[in-house]
């Protein structure tokens, strides 16, 4: 806590009474591959910075300013404090309740092997990856990237709160190329995990290899409506930005949420939590980025909307308690690659991990009970519109399902829809995907900011040839 103490001394000298300090230190090691060769070895890669927030009460409102810095030299801390003080003086917000010291849940967020030997770990995993890929005679890697993160975070505030954590991440991205008679195809996986045992490279590579190979004979689907099974990695991109967005207290406060407590928003099979304390999930932590304990909040229970999520700002503005959702990273999964720059970001209300409760079918049963449909493994961007919950994306790796079995691989064309019911005129209104669920798998996976099963939706729009 020495950095916090140093900054706090200057805050006291300047008579700042309400404040919080966020300090982050990051160390990374990385190996990048060009085909089977090591292209670049990087490390150590170190960064460290802090943010000071100053809160100034203004009648029933509060001004909040933030300054960030990388140097603890008193003149630089003072410069950062000046920036924060100006921000607090000129801005207004409906409320802010500075978190008080609390007991934090015991949540696992670090892998000791990454903590202790990060450079050796990244080199070993790069070797393992190359060795496993060399055994495959049908695909070659075009590029690969492996990186360890060791992050230390400290938070302190004027209420006497002091919190500290150490966490780890491991990032892998690679592209596997299949080639036959001049035809090219690839599978381009990305994995972001907290611990090595979740990487499962030996298990994954045969699946990835098959996806790349099958893509060589892929066809563009026809334009149609069909039942579609979404893999967890796709839901991991779509759910936080759509369902998550409409469950935020900030969205509700702005009058922009489509949800009301107690109202039906999806099929009865659907129960969803914001689970900030799930061991080793990416958004898990003992405390959020304001120092409030993270917890598990039920968002949807049997299709009924239950609650909204809050940070310290919107909780105070709404006369409620924070749910531990003050997050410095935006909701999209890939934001974690920038975890080493969290200190320079402002906290806002964001989901921690969107956790969809498992169903009672296996993936195989879901496929076997379909006459015709699509199994969707990977989309191009999976991006979606928070406000309208509309999404559309190019199909990268998918399969047609015919008579209960995976058949022709698909690539190209698009998949389109809304997560919540569309807002078009009555005669054009389309039900949202959450109201068209026809199957949820027993198996769940950590995928980005989600812990989610495979989910089958009916009547999904496909645009193709």
């Amino acid at each position, binding site marked *: 806590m020495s*950095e916090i103490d140093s900054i706090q001394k200057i805050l006291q000298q300047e008579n700042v009474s309400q404040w919080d300090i966020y300090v982050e230190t990051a160390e990374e090691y*990385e190996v990048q591959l*060009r085909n089977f060769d*090591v292209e*670049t*070895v*990087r*490390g*150590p*890669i*170190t*960064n460290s910075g*802090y943010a000071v927030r100053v809160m100034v009460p203004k009648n029933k409102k509060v001004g909040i300013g*933030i*300054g*960030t810095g*990388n140097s603890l030299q008193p*003149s*630089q801390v003072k410069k950062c404090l000046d*920036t924060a003080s*100006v*921000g607090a003086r*000129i*801005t207004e917000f409906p409320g802010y309740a500075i978190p008080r010291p609390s007991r934090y849940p015991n949540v696992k967020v670090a892998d000791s092997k990454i903590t202790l030997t990060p450079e050796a770990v990244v080199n070993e995993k790069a070797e393992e990856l190359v060795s496993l890929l060399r055994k495959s005679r049908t695909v070659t890697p*075009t*590029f690969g990237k492996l990186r360890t993160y060791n992050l230390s975070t400290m938070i302190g505030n004027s209420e006497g709160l002091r919190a500290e954590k150490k966490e780890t991440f491991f990032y892998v*991205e690679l592209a596997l*190329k299949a080639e036959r008679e*001049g035809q*090219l*195809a*690839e599978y381009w996986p990305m994995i972001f995990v907290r611990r090595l045992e979740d990487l499962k490279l030996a298990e994954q590579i045969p699946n990835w290899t098959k996806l790349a190979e099958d*893509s060589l004979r892929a066809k563009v689907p026809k334009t149609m409506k069909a039942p579609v099974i979404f893999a967890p990695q796709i839901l991991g991109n779509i759910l936080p930005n759509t369902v998550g967005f409409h469950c935020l207290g900030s969205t509700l406060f*702005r*009058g922009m949420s*489509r949800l009301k407590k107690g109202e039906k928003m999806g099929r009865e099979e659907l129960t969803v939590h914001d689970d900030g304390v799930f061991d080793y999930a990416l958004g898990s932590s003992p405390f959020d980025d304001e120092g409030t304990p993270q917890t598990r909040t039920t968002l949807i229970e049997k299709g009924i909307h239950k609650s909204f999520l809050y940070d310290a700002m919107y909780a105070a*503005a709404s006369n409620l308690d924070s749910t531990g959702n003050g997050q410095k990273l935006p909701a999209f999964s*890939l934001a974690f*690659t920038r975890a080493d*720059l969290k200190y*320079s970001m402002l906290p806002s209300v964001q989901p921690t991990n969107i956790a969809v409760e498992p169903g009672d079918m296996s993936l195989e049963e879901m496929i076997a009970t379909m006459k015709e449909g699509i199994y969707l493994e990977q989309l*191009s*961007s999976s991006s979606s*519109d928070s406000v*309208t919950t*509309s*999404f*559309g994306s*190019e199909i*990268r790796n998918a399969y047609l399902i015919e008579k209960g079995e995976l058949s022709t691989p698909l*690539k*190209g064309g*698009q998949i*389109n829809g809304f997560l919540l019911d569309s*807002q*078009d005129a009555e005669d*054009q209104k*389309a039900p949202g995907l959450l109201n068209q669920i026809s199957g949820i798998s027993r198996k769940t996976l950590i995928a980005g900011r989600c812990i989610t099963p495979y989910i089958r939706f009916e009547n999904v729009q*496909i645009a*193709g040839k």
Partner: protein
Amino acid sequence: MAEHISSEGAKDLLAKAVQTMENDVEYADALYERTEGVSIVKDNVEERVSTPVATRGLVLRVYRLGQWREASTHDLSPARAVELAKKLAGFEPLSRNSVKLQELKPWELDEELSVKINPSEVDVEEKLEHLRGFHRDVIGRDKRIVNARVAYSDFISERIFANTEGSVLRQVIPRTTLFIVPIAKEGGRMDYDYLSCGGTSGFELVKDLKEQTVKEVVDSSISLLEASAPPSGHFKVILDQGMTGTFAHESFGHGCEADQVVRKRSYLLPHFGTRIGFEKLNICDDGTLHGGFGSFLFDDEGVKSKKNYILKNGVLDGFLHERYSASAMNTEPTGNGRRESFLRKLFVRMTNTYVEPGDYSLEEMVEEVDNGVMLVHTTSGMEDPLAGGMELKCKKGYLIEKGKIGRVLSSLTLTENVPQFISSIDAVGRREQFESESGTCGKGYEDFVPVGDGGVYIRAEAVVGQG
């Protein structure tokens, strides 16, 4: 934590580091980076003044037998720089190849890109007042505008570079952006359009914004309240300047990045030197474009920025290079070696990528379409460098029926195989249509750098659906 150092201090630090590395490796360089500025967001509820991603640090890099070794640090003490330099200088490559890095002539530069109104000389309170003015203007125009988000940021990127060939370079690039999103709501329906502007420019970007431009984005948001869902299927399409630029960048440009060619991950490799599109189609990447968001003076390995044609008269004319890919392919680097920051690796990256003007008016393009879709106001795109797929998304569109622009459409996605899309382009808009927009580009799933993209209206064929 870091020591605070001046630009001159950073130059001395780089000199020490390079000197430490120079005797033991084929090549070494060092880059100091400082990014700082201000970001302001205003909507109905919040006003936030903060610092956008602020970094200050150093990256050292050495090359031996076909492999790079790097280390980065926020610790700017001479002792740490020398310690890292010594560690790098002694490295043994884990794999080897025969690519020898081509030598480049050393040069020197120390330049700060000038802008009309230096943002650092404008008080933050004055900046916020301007944003409050835009917010009031947007909210006050129509009762159906229930919220408006106005976001502004200015930041300067100072980069100082030195290498074992003797180059010593410094550049300071200012970038400013403004984003206005009026949220319209009527009955149960809510939608929005947006205005985005940005460039290597100063606060004039805000001061010179016309009232009419703000009015247009408000009207556009309201028009989306009555928008229809887009049709699904294969159509004749017309892309506005932003969509054209996103096509030039995401769909075509990424396939022209030579690091992908070297690793045999580009669908364009077999097409080099051949005609793949309309003879009036020219696409270039131009790091020198005046005011372009992706413009700079030299790249992150000290190569001067320049304008490079990647498609000339429909012929695939060249690839974009950093020093390694240029050496491996026996050609010149093109000034496209860029890093997100000192924390990330250097890759071949685009700068400002655009389609050069042709000879069609928009009216002529529309008149010749019997059944099609016009796509405007791009929101995102995604590359597929190996397989040549494409995905472009936009906020708004129009049906085109019997040569006339018809119903408004909300949120669209366009997909197609890129070579098929390029071969279907049959009309390129005139010079007066030219616009370049600002954005950020990732390499794969991360490594974001500022880029510009744009051009003119183009007409082609593609699959369209909801976005």
